[in-house]
C-alpha cells in the first residue's frame, strides 16, 4: 500500500472547491508519511485540469476518461475508483463528504471491503496510524476512529480543511487509467432534469449562509434574507418551520432533516434554534443570530447575539454593507 490519494470532483468542465480542500488534507498527511499525493480525475476530456491539481499539491494525477463519464453516475464512478484501488493499493483514500461523495462512499466501501470513516473534520498521524475525527449526534460529540485493516478510507467534510495556496507551474506526473467496459454499467435513466435555473450558491459549498426562520414573518418578507445573502455573496438557508410552511424549498433547509453546513459565517435571522436546527449548523466558524428573544437557544451558541427585530435591522445592515463596499472601491 502506498500513497495518499484523493478523488477530484468535476462539474461543468471545472474542478470543484472540495477537490482542493482534499489536497490540503492529503498534503500534510503525505508529508508526514513521506508518501506522494495522488488524485484520481474522472470525466470526459478532463486531462487538461491536471495542472490545477498539481498547483494545489498533487504529485500525480490519474486520469480516467470516457464519454460515458462526462456526468456523475455513482455506480460507474465507484467502479472506476474501485479499479484504481486494485491497481494502485492506496494507503489513504480521501473523498468529499458531498452530495456525490456520499453516493459513492458506501458502494466503494463494499467494493474495497473496508468500511469508511465519514464526515471527517480532522486527520492526525499518530504511530503510523491515521486518526480520523468526526462529529456524531449532530455534532454534540466528536469521535476519533482508525482503520484497522488495509486502506484508510475517509470522507472529508466540506470547509473543514483549508484550500492550499496554489503554486502555479508546480510539476506533476499524469497517469492514465484504462476504463474497463464493466465500469460503464447504466442501470438508471435520467428522464428529466427540472433545472431550477438558479445561479444561487449551493448551501453546502457557501462560505457564508444567511438563514431565516419563522421570525421573518412570511414567504414574501423572505426577500429581505435573499437581499442580505446577495449583498454578502451568501447562500440562503431556512429553518424547518419555514420549509414546512411552504415559504422556502427543502433544498434550503438546514438541520436534522435538511443539510449540515459549516460555513465561515452563519447568520440566523428569526430562527429560535431548536436542537434539530443546531445540529445542522453549530460547527460554523462564526454564528451571528438576530432574534427579538434574547433567551432563544440560538442566542446561546451565537458568537454575536443581536437582540433586535430582523425586519428593522437587516435593511440597515444592507445599507452599511453597501457603504463598506463603496469605501473599499
Amino acid at each position: 500500500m502506498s500513497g495518499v490519494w484523493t478523488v477530484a470532483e468535476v462539474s461543468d468542465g471545472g474542478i470543484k472547491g472540495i477537490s482542493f480542500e482534499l489536497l490540503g488534507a492529503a498534503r500534510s498527511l503525505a508529508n508526514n508519511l513521506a508518501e506522494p499525493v495522488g488524485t484520481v480525475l474522472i470525466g470526459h476530456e478532463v486531462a487538461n485540469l491536471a495542472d490545477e491539481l498539481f498547483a494545489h499539491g498533487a504529485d500525480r494525477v490519474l486520469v480516467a476518461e470516457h464519454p460515458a463519464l462526462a456526468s456523475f453516475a455513482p455506480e460507474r464512478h465507484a467502479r472506476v475508483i474501485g479499479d484504481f484501488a486494485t491497481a494502485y493499493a492506496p494507503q489513504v483514500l480521501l473523498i468529499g463528504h458531498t452530495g456525490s461523495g456520499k453516493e459513492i462512499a458506501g458502494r466503494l466501501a463494499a467494493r474495497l471491503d473496508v468500511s469508511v470513516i465519514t464526515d471527517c473534520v480532522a486527520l492526525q498521524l499518530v504511530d503510523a496510524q491515521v486518526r480520523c475525527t468526526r462529529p456524531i449526534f449532530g455534532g454534540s460529540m466528536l469521535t476519533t476512529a482508525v482503520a484497522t485493516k488495509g486502506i484508510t478510507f475517509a470522507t472529508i467534510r466540506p470547509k473543514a480543511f483549508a484550500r492550499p495556496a496554489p503554486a502555479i507551474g508546480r510539476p506533476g506526473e499524469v497517469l492514465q487509467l484504462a476504463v474497463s467496459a464493466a465500469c460503464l454499467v447504466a442501470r438508471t435513466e435520467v428522464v428529466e432534469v427540472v433545472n431550477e435555473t438558479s445561479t444561487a450558491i449551493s448551501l453546502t459549498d457557501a462560505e457564508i449562509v444567511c438563514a431565516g426562520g419563522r421570525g421573518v414573518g412570511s414567504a414574501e418578507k423572505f426577500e429581505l434574507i435573499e437581499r442580505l445573502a446577495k449583498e454578502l455573496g451568501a447562500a440562503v438557508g431556512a429553518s424547518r418551520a419555514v420549509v414546512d410552511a411552504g415559504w422556502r424549498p427543502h433544498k434550503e433547509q438546514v438541520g436534522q432533516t435538511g443539510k449540515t453546513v459549516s460555513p465561515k459565517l452563519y447568520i440566523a435571522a428569526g430562527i429560535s434554534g431548536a436542537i434539530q436546527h443546531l445540529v445542522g449548523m453549530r460547527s460554523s466558524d462564526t454564528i451571528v443570530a438576530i432574534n427579538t428573544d434574547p433567551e432563544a437557544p440560538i442566542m446561546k451558541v451565537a458568537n454575536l447575539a443581536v437582540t433586535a427585530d430582523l425586519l428593522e435591522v437587516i435593511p440597515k445592515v444592507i445599507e452599511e454593507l453597501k457603504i463598506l463596499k463603496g469605501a473599499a472601491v
Partner: protein
Amino acid sequence: MKIVVCVKYVPDTNEPKRLKSDLALQRNGVQSVINPMDEYALEIALKWKDADPALEVVTLTMGPEEAKGVIKKCLAKGADRAVLLQDPALGGSDALSTSRTLAAAIAKIGKVDAVLCGIRSSDGDCNVVGPAIAELLDWPQLTYCKEAQLDQAARYVQVQREADGALEIVRAALPVLLTVTKCAFEPRLATFKGITAANKKELLVWSLADLNLSANQVGWEGATVKVMSFSEPPPRPAGQVLSGSPAEVARKMVEYLHTLKLV
C-alpha cells in the same frame, strides 16, 4: 411484490447523549425513536401499499430488544411484517458490516423488489449504508428521493430526486434501492385500529445463525474501523450581545464582521 424498508432505532435528538465505559451508547432511560428519515422511506412504501393492498411491506431493523417498540409503531402504521436482527455478535458493527448484515437479511427475506432506506441516520450520520447495501446486492441505487412511483406492471420505479441545484426525474428497473430524504408530505400516524392490528402481525427475530454470514464478517470482529475515543466538542466561546437602535446595532454588526474579515 415485496418491499423492504430499513428502519433504524435511534436515540431521540432531544435527549442528552451519554456513553458507557465501553464507549457504547447509554440507552437505558433514553427515549428512542424511528430514525426521522426512515419515517419518510416507510411512508413512500405505505403510499405504494395504499394503491395496491396486495403489496407486501416488510421492515428490517438491526438493534436491541427495546427496538421492538419502534418496530410495532411501523406495523401499526401499516407495514405487514417486521424482521429484527438481534445478536450479541452484531455489537460493534461499523458502517460496512452493518450494511453486510442488512444485505444478508434482505437476501434471506427473498424475492425483494425494492429496498427503501432513509438517506442517513440522526445518530451515526454516515450516509453510506443504503448505497453499500445496493453494491452488496449488486443493485442500482436512486438517492435523495423526495417522491417515488412504483410501476408494478412495467417493473420499474421512477423518482423525483434532489440533485445538486436541480430536481431530477430518474428511473430504474427493479430490483432497486432507494434512499429517501425529507419529503413534501408528512409521514402518517398510526390509527387506533392499526395499533390493535399490529399486535397480531409477525415480528421475526433473527440471530446471526439465521443469516448466511460468519461471525468474523460482522460486529467487533468484522469491523475494519475502530473507534478509539469520544470527546466533547470544544465549547463555543461566550458570545457578545448587541442591542440598541436598529441603525446602531446594524453598524456594530457590520463592524464586527469586518474585524473578522468576513465582509
